[in-house]
């Protein structure tokens, strides 16, 4: 089986650096999703594994082999491209079998393997069609079959579902999951879609502006974002991020004279802090109850199962997930509360600041996952 190791991998185009040194290890048989906004260097990183981009600095190892100088064909990777990149002049059969033909596999064996792979993605009745005569989902499956037929050591996916409609995307997601379970091949999947990333990944590598922000299991990343960027990027609706400062009494001053009382702030007095709390951790509270924050409803987004209240708390935006019903016209005054344990603090550099409360939450979460 095959691991992939990045040792301070860098990429420059002429003088412009786009990947600033990535260190990571992907375990054998693991499904890793590289997630980040467009232009963060995630595709570049994937293409460096594939051998389609030169590695400017550092090393990539597949298994124990440094692959920096190897041609794509010598690396044992197969790739599914964003626009499928099927050979438009070849039938589905020839598309899937091309790699085998190039490798000099005898015709009979080739036919056999193409058929088997085609069956596993239910394409066997389309083998004599041209890509142009297939639907988007079918093309996507041809692209996957083409990658699978070579029995590669590593699967690379470069935003493969971005051209599909939402429903098909969900279907393909579970198909990829199933294939990975059946084949157990080390897979690297690049996407900017966090839902896709969260549902597919064993582990996530979250990138921003050419740097790795955090590596971890989806739930770790969600519950303990390592930076302000990750906190903002993961989760929908995004985490409430409130800029402010702790005063000498440990109260958090923000917006236009807003105050939040917390216990964790004493040690951080005077520093510029971003306080984060997930909308689903914000609850409605009675006026006057302990620690309640007053806010004025801006507007409400109805989601069906629940609704999102967008409110203004003394000049800071506060979003809360609410299960209640009843009309909430804008301008309604409400009170919200959240528990100390759900608070994330980020310093001026955007990195996470550990507090007693967050450490306690982390321990609780770790226990939960171990028990699970």
């Amino acid at each position, binding site marked *: 089986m095959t691991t992939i190791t990045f040792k301070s991998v860098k990429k420059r185009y002429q003088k412009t650096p786009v990947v600033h040194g990535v260190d990571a290890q992907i375990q054998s048989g693991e499904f890793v999703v590289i997630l980040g906004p467009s232009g963060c260097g995630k595709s570049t990183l994937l293409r460096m594994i594939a051998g389609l981009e030169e590695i400017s600095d550092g090393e990539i190892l597949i298994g124990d082999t440094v692959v920096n100088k190897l041609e*794509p064909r010598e690396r044992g990777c197969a790739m599914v491209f964003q*626009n499928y*990149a099927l050979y438009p*002049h070849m039938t589905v059969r020839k598309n899937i079998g091309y*790699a085998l033909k190039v*490798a000099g596999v005898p015709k009979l064996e080739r036919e056999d393997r193409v058929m088997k792979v085609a069956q596993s993605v239910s394409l066997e009745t389309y083998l004599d069609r041209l890509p142009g005569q297939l639907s988007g989902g079918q093309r996507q499956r041809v692209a996957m079959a083409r990658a699978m037929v*070579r029995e590669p050591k590593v699967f690379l996916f470069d935003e493969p579902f971005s051209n599909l409609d939402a429903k098909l995307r969900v279907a393909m997601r579970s198909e990829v999951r199933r294939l990975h379970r059946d084949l157990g091949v080390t897979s690297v999947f690049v996407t900017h879609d966090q839902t896709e990333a969260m549902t597919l990944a064993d582990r996530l590598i979250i990138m921003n502006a050419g740097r790795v922000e955090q590596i971890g299991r989806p739930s770790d990343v969600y519950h303990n974002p390592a930076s302000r960027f990750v906190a903002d990027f993961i989760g929908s609706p995004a985490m409430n991020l409130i800029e402010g400062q702790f005063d000498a009494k440990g109260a958090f001053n923000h917006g236009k004279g807003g105050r939040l009382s917390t216990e964790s702030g004493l040690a951080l007095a005077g520093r510029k802090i971003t306080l984060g709390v997930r909308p689903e951790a914000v609850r409605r509270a009675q006026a006057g109850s302990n620690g309640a924050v007053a806010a004025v409803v801006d507007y409400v987004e109805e989601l069906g199962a629940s609704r999102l209240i967008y409110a203004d708390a003394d000049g800071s935006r506060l979003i809360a997930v609410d299960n209640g019903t009843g009309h909430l016209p804008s301008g309604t005054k409400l009170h919200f509360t959240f528990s100390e344990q759900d608070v994330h603090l980020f310093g001026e550099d955007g990195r996470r600041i550990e507090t007693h409360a967050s450490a306690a939450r982390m321990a609780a979460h770790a226990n939960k996952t171990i028990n699970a």
Partner: protein
Amino acid sequence: MERRAYYRNKGLPWLLIAPQLLLVLVFFYWPTSQALYWAFTLEQPWGGGNTWVGWDNFLSIFHDKEYWGTVVRSAFYACCTTALSMFMALTLAVFVDRSLKGTRAFQSVYVWPYAIAAPAAGVAFRFMFAPEAGLIGAINDIWPGIWNPAINGYQALGMIIVCHSWLGIGYNFIFFLAALQMIPRSISEAGAMDGARPVRRMLDLQLPLIAPTVFFLLIINLISSFTDSFGLIDTMTEGGPFGSTEVMVYKIYFDGFKGLDYSGAAAQSIILMLLVVALTFVQFKWVEKRVHYN
């Protein structure tokens, strides 16, 4: 539903196409009608108008062994020129396509030869290929007398073929490069991931995808080598030595203006015209074959 724009003013459309129509009339239909007239008539020995001779001019051409010699030579010339020019252009285009830096510069540099008038290129190549002083003539210093297109017909023909191909490379290059760049890059990358080396990728993936362009250029080059060779041959060899570079278009000129056999020359030019029309027809019929991009 078909959408069309109509002119309210009946005269305006005619006015708009008049310049083009006039050009075509003066430079194509009128000469062609004259050629047709000459091809089916013969001028009387002592003047006094032409007499109708029907197919006689054509028959005498078809019975002329020398004419068939020119036809074979023209075909050979056309095939060699086209193959050489397209192969060179494709090779250059593939190189430029693979490393995109400075593509624009190459595009303009390679197209320059196309802007050179054939006679000018002919004179330049005559100097280069001159046995006594030219670049190629240098091999005569090593093996005296081995290179002399003035007496060796094959060398003379080869010299013109090289020159004609060179003139066409730029034009072909532009088309090839454009076609290659139309192919999504990821297709070639997918080929690389599938283990195909660059040459294999070119043969299996790129070439089939630019087939329509190849076909278009094939016809254009064939037509050009049948008709545009006159300027080169006239400046470089004047059909010699011993008629070994006399192709169809040059024979028309020679028979007509040097031999003063207007009727024979006219009949020959009608044949050449039909050949070009046939090639063009093939092109129109086939070039609309489907193109394979997604």
